[in-house]
């Protein structure tokens, strides 16, 4: 046991000051550049604003009443939850799995790692265009390849009908973002001490047992954060779904982000859009608080 340095009250205080100093720049940047727009957005939600001119009048809680009583918000909330849970699960499972594989001694490992990260590197707009092209029924490679392999004999309508559309969106989302999980998990895997594995092996543990008893607990902290961050990000995801299906068929893939965008720039109702955003934020907040409490307790 290494002896810890005696900390005098004076030293304690000076450390505390240093701590605050270190986080001050971050807080400063935040207050300047994000707090104002944030407050402005919340402020907007009690007005009825016409987007092209940004003029409007005070309507109090009218936007929120519409949010609570109308179908749009709740329908979109349901869609968002299905999308988020679906794609997040796939991202985590594939992400961890791929990281474990890429942690092994593979041929041309650097190249493999770079290629796997490619979906994350690619701009969303381009990714969606390429996927739409691949999914196309006339000249798309997916249908063509599957037909050549004999799995299909007629082209499939990947994005235009349910449940294909939601499944397609979840899959493309998982493909696009799972490399984020891979990067973070790989980095953590590097620092797991070898002797833990050796000790387990000596105890007679097979590879699966070693994964559950050694790797997973070590990964726990990183995974908790990754799940939180990816969940927030997936919940807010706009570009991917908008470009892939436009929210269709009808509104079956219209998530909350799409609803906000449509309200703000399609229907030109900035105030209502702000109200939906605040609603969205509150939902995320509730989940976030519950999640942090739960994972904090177990830790």
């Amino acid at each position: 046991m290494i002896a810890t340095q005696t900390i005098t009250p004076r030293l304690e205080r000076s450390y505390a000051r240093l701590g605050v100093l270190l986080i001050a720049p971050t807080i400063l940047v935040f207050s300047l550049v994000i707090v104002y727009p944030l407050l402005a957005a919340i402020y907007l939600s009690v007005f009825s604003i016409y987007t092209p001119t940004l003029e409007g009048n005070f309507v109090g809680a009218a936007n929120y009443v519409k949010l609570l009583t109308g179908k749009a918000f709740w329908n979109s909330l349901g869609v968002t939850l299905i999308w988020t849970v679906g794609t997040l699960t796939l991202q985590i499972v594939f992400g961890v799995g791929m990281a474990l594989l890429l942690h092994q001694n593979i041929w041309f490992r650097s190249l493999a790692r770079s290629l796997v990260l490619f979906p994350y590197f690619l701009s969303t707009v381009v990714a969606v265009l390429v996927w739409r092209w691949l999914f196309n029924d006339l000249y798309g490679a997916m249908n063509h390849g599957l037909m050549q392999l004999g799995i299909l004999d007629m082209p499939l309508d990947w994005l235009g009908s349910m449940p294909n559309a939601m499944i397609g969106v979840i899959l493309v989302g998982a493909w696009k973002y799972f490399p984020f999980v891979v990067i973070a998990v790989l980095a953590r895997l590097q620092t797991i001490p070898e002797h833990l594995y050796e000790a387990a092996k000596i105890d007679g543990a097979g590879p699966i047992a070693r994964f559950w008893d050694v790797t997973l607990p070590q990964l726990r902290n990183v995974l908790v954060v990754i799940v939180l961050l990816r969940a927030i990000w997936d919940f807010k995801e706009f570009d991917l779904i908008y470009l892939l299906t436009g929210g269709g068929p009808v509104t079956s893939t219209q998530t909350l982000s799409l609803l906000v965008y449509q309200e703000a720039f399609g229907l030109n109702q900035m105030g209502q859009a702000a109200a939906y955003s605040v609603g969205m934020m509150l939902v995320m907040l509730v989940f976030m608080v519950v999640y942090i409490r739960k994972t904090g307790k177990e830790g």
Partner: protein
Amino acid sequence: MQRSMLQGVIVNLVTWTLVLLIAFPLLWMIITSVKPQTELFRIPPTWFPETITFEHYWRLLTETPFLTYFRNSVVLATTTTIFVVALGTLGAYSLVRFKYRGRETLAMLVLFTYLLPSVVLIIPLYLMMVAIGLSNTLVSLILAHTTFALPYALWLLRSFMEGVPEDLESAALVDGASRMGAFRDIILPQLLPGIISTALFTFILSWNEYLYALVLVNSDSVAPLTTGVMSMLISAFNIEWSLLMAASVMMSLPLIVVFAFLQSYLTSGFGAGGVKG
């Protein structure tokens, strides 16, 4: 012995199959970008181009402001990454290793600012930039990108920081090092994989960001690749597919190369860490 060799081969094959499947769209993009326009929409599609041409790349480089956009993106993403990693690392250190009031609340607040969708933030942010005279400049984008990359970076680095054993730092302090000295000599090296991975994802975030660039910036001299290329090649009625594929390949390959280069930092185990394979 033989069994583990066979196992090794199977693992390799499985991994590479998955990798190729995942990277298939990239391969498709590359193949398409060297096809002449007449082969683009051949039915049934050709797996390998009948003729290979680099005319799209040439056109992109010589007839469009692509290189300007590229330069802007590099400046933007690099500056944002440096900012974010610097602020985030110090902030994470502060949140994990120091005790002061409101520590946890600060962490929560930072994440809280993150919950609003960008669509609603964008117009107030633009108005603010106009008001302080920064509209249509790269600086406004750097600020905007910093603010949405920072919460992510902070939380990620915080979790990596928590994985660094306290004993090492304490030992250094006992030996008489200052806190910042200990930070520099002991903690940073341990944190390196975490910093590299955070830097990487911040760079990508900034490199691929579209919405803020769309609204905050207009001129070609300042536009990054995302908006520059997209608005040039994609409009309501038409998409310039060949040029778009060539542009997309050129936008992605540098990232892949940079990452391959940074591999070694991500994988360097040191001290107590064990590198498997």
